[in-house]
């Protein structure tokens, strides 16, 4: 095989053993890489009902056929496992030198089983794999861990690690790299912590073999040039995703006060222009010329990388309008290795619960000191409220009762990312049907929806959600490359089959790529159903009641809510277009059409398929 290394590294932490698997080329053709490989392995090898924080859970890191090659923004990988937060399929991507190093070491992925009884980290150098003692790293922040590990192993390694949140099994702890690159929102860091795996250090010194290296180099150079010529390239380099604060405010989708409102009175103090005033540095992922990591100095004089999601969730959503203070919360979340979106949600939820007198603690909107304390309560689970919120807002709402589930802003247990959907039905459907729970990475349809009109609930909108899921959640998550050149700058999709051809020697049409994406979505859906058994139902795909029942009270869209009946109509169309039945369960025909007939027998042990 060319383009793919054709090899996975298998690691058993209980036995401290490793092996190399040469996988079948047919796997690459059917699942491409990244997320595709991840779900295929989890479906095939994870016993249904496995406790997510037990040694039996499987943690996978997967790259794809473009990872680490000299084409735009290819320094990404996917981390996946059964999620302790949602009990379903969980994954996330992050940009890291480790992605490049993994491939140069000769692997497309690492599959980790078992658990160590003492803290360890893995050191991988091509064929050599070592289990090293991590006693002195345990308890360290992600920043310090990386610093220490690069002192030990040199600067030319790739590092993935967890912070105290992962060690303490906070259910939305994630995996970190390079001071601020993070992935695996649904608790991939907690899974790593449960295995007592503090870090993975990779040094790869080989060439990644490709079908046509000259052509790939030429195409890559052209691609980078093309990106630089895009009209918003310069501005993107200045503000990156931070420009979205102003955009969301203008469109009334900036989450404010735990998604009660879509406009925040201090939006201009936390947006891209405010960020530019305190920016000290810019950095990015490997092989990227868009480098969107804007590093600022926070209120405590320390450095942190900001982006839109973090700032909205730790800013407007908790009523905090001071960017330097938001930056402190962002940095702490990164140092502790906890997901910024979920922890922002958790703090917002607590503020609202406090206001409604469901909590004895007094935590007011916009109270920075209280938010900071709460964040640490959660990371260290050092009191009742910390322990409550460390399990996510769905769990917290179940404990608090009093209809708090209506405003626990999550879908399938994963907290919603930073777009308010009171008046954005397609975006609501996107959150509803995202295969890991509410996240924007799959179908970020909001911009398109603003363009075509917000009011309507149409088949066209549903089709657009699916199209975006195919491209973003399917193709980019498998390649694995960053989607931002395409979505932010308009770098045309046609480049990618060309890159793939030069890398692998194989032709991929978009029809074929979308079929792969549909196969992956359907297999992920099957995974959820297998885990949830009788508890699965279409309510799993419906966002929280707040958006349906509590109208916006401010701004130009005052009075707007989602319409539940019409949302359900869109959801039915969604199922129909995907070949799933009214329960959201794939039909036998859909499974056969996608080449997944071999899972029918297993699924039928749990649920009758139509």
């Amino acid at each position: 095989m060319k383009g793919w290394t054709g090899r996975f590294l298998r690691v058993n932490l209980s036995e401290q053993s490793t092996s190399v698997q040469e996988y079948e080329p047919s796997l690459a053709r059917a699942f491409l890489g990244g997320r595709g490989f991840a779900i295929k392995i989890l479906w095939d090898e994870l016993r249904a009902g496995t406790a997510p924080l037990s040694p039996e859970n499987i943690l996978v890191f997967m790259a794809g056929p473009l990872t680490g090659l000299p084409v735009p923004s290819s320094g990404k990988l996917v981390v996946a496992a059964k999620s302790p937060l949602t009990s379903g399929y969980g994954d996330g991507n992050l940009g890291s030198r480790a992605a490049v190093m993994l491939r140069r070491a000769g692997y497309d992925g690492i599959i980790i089983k078992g658990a160590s009884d003492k803290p360890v980290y893995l050191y991988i150098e091509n064929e050599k794999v070592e289990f090293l003692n991590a006693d002195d790293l345990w308890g360290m922040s992600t920043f310090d861990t990386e610093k220490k590990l690069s002192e030990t192993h040199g600067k030319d390694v790739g590092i993935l690690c967890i912070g105290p949140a992962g060690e303490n099994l906070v259910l939305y702890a994630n995996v970190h790299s390079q001071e601020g690159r993070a992935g695996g929102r649904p608790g991939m860091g907690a899974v790593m912590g449960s295995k007592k795996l503090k870090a993975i250090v990779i040094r790869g010194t080989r060439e990644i073999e490709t079908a046509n290296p000259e052509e790939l180099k030429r195409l890559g150079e052209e691609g980078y040039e093309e990106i630089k010529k895009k009209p918003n390239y310069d501005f993107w380099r200045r503000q990156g995703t931070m420009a979205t604060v102003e955009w969301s405010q203008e469109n009334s989708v900036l989450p404010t006060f735990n998604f009660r409102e879509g406009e925040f009175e201090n939006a201009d103090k936390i947006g891209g222009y405010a960020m530019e005033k305190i920016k000290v540095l810019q950095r990015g992922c490997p092989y990227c010329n868009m480098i969107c990591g804007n590093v600022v100095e926070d209120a405590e004089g320390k450095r942190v990388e900001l982006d839109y999601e973090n700032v909205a969730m730790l800013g407007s959503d908790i009523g905090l309008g001071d960017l330097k203070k938001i930056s402190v919360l962002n940095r702490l979340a990164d140092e502790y290795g906890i997901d910024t979106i979920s922890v922002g949600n958790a703090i917002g939820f607590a503020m609202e619960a406090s206001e409604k007198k469901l909590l004895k603690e007094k935590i007011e909107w916009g109270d920075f000191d209280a938010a900071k304390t709460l964040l640490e309560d959660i990371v260290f689970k050092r009191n009742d409220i910390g322990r409550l919120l460390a399990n996510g807002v769905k769990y917290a709402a179940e404990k608090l009762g009093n209809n708090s589930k209506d405003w626990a802003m999550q879908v399938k247990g994963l907290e919603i990312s930073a777009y308010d959907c009171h008046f954005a039905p397609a975006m609501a459907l996107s959150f509803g049907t995202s295969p890991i729970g509410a996240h924007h990475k799959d179908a970020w349809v909001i911009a398109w929806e603003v363009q075509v009109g917000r009011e309507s609930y149409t088949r066209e909108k549903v089709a657009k959600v699916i199209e975006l899921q195919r491209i973003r959640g399917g193709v980019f998550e498998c390649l694995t490359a960053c989607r931002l050149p395409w979505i932010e700058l308009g770098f045309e999709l046609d480049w990618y089959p060309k890159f793939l051809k030069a890398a692998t020697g194989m032709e991929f049409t978009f029809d074929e790529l979308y079929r792969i994406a549909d196969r992956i979505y359907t297999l992920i859906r099957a995974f959820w159903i297998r885990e949830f058994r009788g508890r699965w139902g279409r309510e799993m795909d419906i966002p929280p009641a707040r958006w349906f029942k509590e109208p916006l009270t401010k701004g130009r869209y005052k009075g707007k809510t989602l319409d539940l009946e019409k949302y359900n109509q869109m959801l039915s169309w969604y199922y129909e277009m995907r070949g799933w039945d009214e329960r959201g369960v794939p039909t036998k025909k859909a499974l056969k059409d996608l080449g997944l007939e071999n899972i029918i027998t297993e699924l039928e042990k749990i649920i009758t398929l139509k």
Partner: protein
Amino acid sequence: MRSTETRKVCVKLLGYIAEMLGFRNRELNIGKGLRVRELLKGVNVDEKRIIVLINGKPANMDSILRGGEYVVIMPVVGGG
């Protein structure tokens, strides 16, 4: 029907479009009327990736401004 010859619109520009035209918010005279496209004359924008809202409703580059409108022109950018 308006009789005045100096009609005005409020224009708000977001992202790189604001940088290219050199303002973020402005009240503009539009003479007797103007196509949105003319507001962007001479600047390099990617038309397929521009969102135009007039009084909060979706519009496009060919929409005609007649005075009194609030126009927002923004790129398809995001925290995508």
